[in-house]
């Protein structure tokens, strides 16, 4: 392999989903000349485009028809009537949804910004569904006490992503499409650039920058049944960890209640937002037993656990008796075709069932990564519990942990998170660069180190299969670090990961060519999956309580006395477990003191 010249940009954004694209667009619009975005897949293929149901903001455009109760049909709010929703209510719902682990200062910022961001999307061309009088339409979503999910049928993420990518192009952002970031260069707490592989040529480059931002998305691919795209291998999280940045709250992984049975492909929560039911094999709407008030629209952690409980107690369906059913039949053909056209097709294509007249078999599916790279509300990454900044390094979106979702994210709050904080990071980066940020020197040759990393795996004489290792990892994570956890199962997961790490040392890259080598990507991604999965498990073992999505059957209660705090995991030497540290949660005890979480 030849040694290309190092590349240089003012700003390198890794990731072209909503978080990365917003940041790049804003930095560019704010006058930073040289903004480049790296993405391992074409920007428009980013997983943000798969989001279906909606993006939250308390616009108050719709409400239940008066005197039909909270569950009643929705209508547009007539001009001049009482506001039907409020920022306060959205803030409280989010805090409660987070099981009080969300940082309340950051949550307030996100929710106050939400209406502004929706209007910006709208002004920039996003094709939202509309109310009869032409406002952005809003539907119900789990854990939200008002209809505040702004949507475009059930392809919301798709239209948001296209809108922002196109506006970034309009502002002259440069895109490196199909470039894989494999390393982050941080010395003395100053970020100096990244190392990236040009997938087409196989060349590995050092890219220097005054500021680097990660918007690399989630890590759902650590699980076997997942709604996440193949690309969601948590690279950014693992790369930051390997560069010495701690990871925060990694043990909090959201399982979505309605993944297509055996596939994990998402049937949006909008299905229930529009009035769909969940039933067990006996046809019971079992949520009555678990969340009498909110029923199917209780938050995801609770609904997924309820499903798993039904299955564990023998009331699951299908041949293996581990399916639950989503019932949309009573919504009627017209509503399904108008509001849920994509999910209908998914059910037909993947499980051969048309929801218009049949029950759809579903099961909980790994969906969202609450944890990630710790940062503040301007995207500034922090190096420790004291908040020491990693100068020039920013993060936003699903790879980041600010934390606005705490122990459990509410549906439609993550498109919001990626947009609001991607945008804010864009402003912060522009200010940083225009304020005289410098390129910093780089010691040694990081690109060469990474070439060696790939070369040695290519030349590895071992016989282990990388795919089998990745598969075994996903299996143990699903079984032992899933919806219900306990100390024993988590120890098994930990040992499995250690054994898999050892096997991985003997796993070669089989494709020896340099051009578009997806086998190299597979190896790097698997390395990343293994390294952050160990952090998920370590955090889960230590946290002896139940909070949000982290449910320990051997410690069946929330424990605010000991565990109302964020986990920070710092990498130690090769093969050693991470060092766990903790950071207080930002709580406004007067306004939003911790309460019991009931729905």
């Amino acid at each position, binding site marked *: 392999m030849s040694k290309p010249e190092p590349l240089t940009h003012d700003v390198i954004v890794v990731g072209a989903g909503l978080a990365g694209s917003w940041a790049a667009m804003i930095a560019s619009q704010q006058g930073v000349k040289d903004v480049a975005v790296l993405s391992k897949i074409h920007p428009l293929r980013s997983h943000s485009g798969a989001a279906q149901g909606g993006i939250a903001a308390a616009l108050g455009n719709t409400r239940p028809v008066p005197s039909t109760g909270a569950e009643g049909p929705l209508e547009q709010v007539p001009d001049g009537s009482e506001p039907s929703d409020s920022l306060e209510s959205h803030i409280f719902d989010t805090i409660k949804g987070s099981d009080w682990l969300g940082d309340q200062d950051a949550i307030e910022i996100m929710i106050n910004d939400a209406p502004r961001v929706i209007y910006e999307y709208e002004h920039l061309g996003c094709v939202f*569904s509309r109310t009869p009088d032409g406002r952005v339409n809003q539907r119900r979503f789990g854990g939200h006490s008002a209809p505040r999910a702004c949507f475009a049928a059930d392809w919301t993420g798709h239209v948001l992503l296209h809108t922002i990518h196109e506006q970034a192009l309009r502002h002259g952002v440069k895109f490196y499409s199909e470039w894989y970031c494999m390393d982050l260069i941080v010395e003395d707490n100053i970020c100096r650039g990244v190392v990236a592989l040009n997938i087409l040529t196989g060349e590995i480059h050092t890219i220097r920058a005054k500021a680097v931002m990660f918007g690399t998305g989630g890590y759902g691919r650590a699980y076997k049944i997942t709604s996440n795209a193949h690309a969601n291998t948590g690279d950014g999280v693992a790369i930051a960890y390997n560069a010495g940045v701690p990871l925060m709250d990694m043990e909090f992984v959201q399982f979505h209640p309605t993944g297509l049975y055996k596939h994990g492909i998402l049937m949006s929560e909008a299905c229930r937002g529009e009035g769909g039911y969940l039933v067990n094999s006996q046809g019971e709407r079992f949520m009555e037993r678990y969340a009498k008030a909110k029923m199917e629209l209780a938050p995801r952690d609770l609904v997924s656990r309820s499903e798993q409980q039904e299955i564990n107690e023998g009331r699951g369906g299908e041949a293996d008796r581990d399916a639950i059913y989503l019932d949309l039949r009573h919504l009627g053909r017209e509503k399904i075709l108008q509001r849920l056209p994509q999910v209908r097709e998914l059910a037909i294509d993947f499980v051969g069932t048309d929801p218009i007249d049949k029950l759809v078999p579903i099961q909980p599916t790994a969906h969202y990564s609450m944890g990630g790279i710790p940062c503040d509300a301007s995207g500034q990454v922090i190096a420790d519990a004291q908040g020491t900044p990693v100068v020039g390094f920013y993060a936003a979106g699903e790879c980041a942990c600010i934390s606005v979702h705490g122990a459990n994210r509410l549906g439609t709050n993550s498109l919001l998170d990626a947009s609001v904080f991607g945008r804010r990071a864009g402003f912060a980066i522009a200010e940083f660069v225009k304020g005289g940020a410098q390129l910093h020197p780089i010691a040694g040759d990081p690109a060469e180190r990474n070439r060696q990393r790939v070369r040695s795996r290519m030349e590895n004489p071992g016989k282990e299969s990388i795919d089998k290792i990745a598969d075994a990892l996903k299996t143990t994570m699903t079984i032992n670090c899933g919806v219900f956890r306990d100390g024993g199962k988590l120890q098994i997961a930990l040992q499995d990961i250690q054994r898999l790490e050892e096997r991985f040392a003997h796993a070669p890259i089989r494709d020896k060519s340099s051009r578009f080598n997806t086998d190299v990507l597979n190896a790097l991604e698997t390395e990343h999956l293994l390294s952050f999965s160990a952090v998920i498990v370590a955090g889960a073992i230590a946290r002896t309580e139940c909070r949000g999505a982290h449910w320990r059957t051997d410690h069946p209660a929330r424990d605010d006395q000991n565990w109302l705090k964020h986990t920070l995991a710092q990498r130690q030497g090769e093969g050693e477990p991470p060092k766990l540290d903790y950071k207080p949660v930002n709580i406004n005890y007067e306004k939003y003191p911790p309460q019991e979480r009931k729905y």
Partner: protein
Amino acid sequence: MPDSHPLPTTATVRVQRFNPDNDKKPRIQEFKVPLTADTTILDALHYIKAELDGSLTFRRSCRHAICGSCAMNVNGRNMLVCKTPLTRELDQQARVTIKPLPYLPIIKDLVVDRSSFWEQYQRVKPWLIPPDNVPEKEFRVSPEEVEALHNAETCIMCGACYSACQVIAMTKEYIGPHALLKAFLRVLDPRDAAPGERLADLDGGDGVYRCHTIFNCIDACPKNLNPTQAIETLRKLAQKRQAYEVERAERQKTLTQPVK
């Protein structure tokens, strides 16, 4: 595969292989893949890569027909392999043939170079050009106006239509169905401030008149969109461009008022 036959337990997947660095020309390689009723073609490719040949190269990400990565040519037709059941495409001998999208340079195996595709996408200025006066809240757009955009807004830019288009097969100067569909989205959007400029550009020799209405794009589109109809609409609007600009300017005067 006729439904009455019992499902065979294996399928023969014939994949076109080509690495321009080493190979003079593409060749077909056969693989035996285990088959169940819900194996997709993408599952089969993953199986080959994991178990039989780690060098097999293809793009994929979402695996549910929304990211547009995995468009390929299966038994002579362009489709998304992630949502296509393998059984649907097998012949009497339980065989299927998978090739890269035609008429595009091959990067490696099933991965094609979509550069010309993206250049045309950029050429039509895919972004909305918003009006100067932006309200504090949203522009008011009616559900009917949104409905009219549905034919274009769900395009996932997979390239299936582009590489099925007989005009593209002859010349990459043609803007192409995908980019014309995007242009349609902007021209029809009541918020866009430059429909006249756009129509003038599309009216040239590489634009709407290049389409020969062969309808291949409609057959190829995995999202059931209709680029030909969009191109037809653009043609009509281009013919009355000035009137359309006046109409748009009028509409924009009421963009901040309730539509009903």
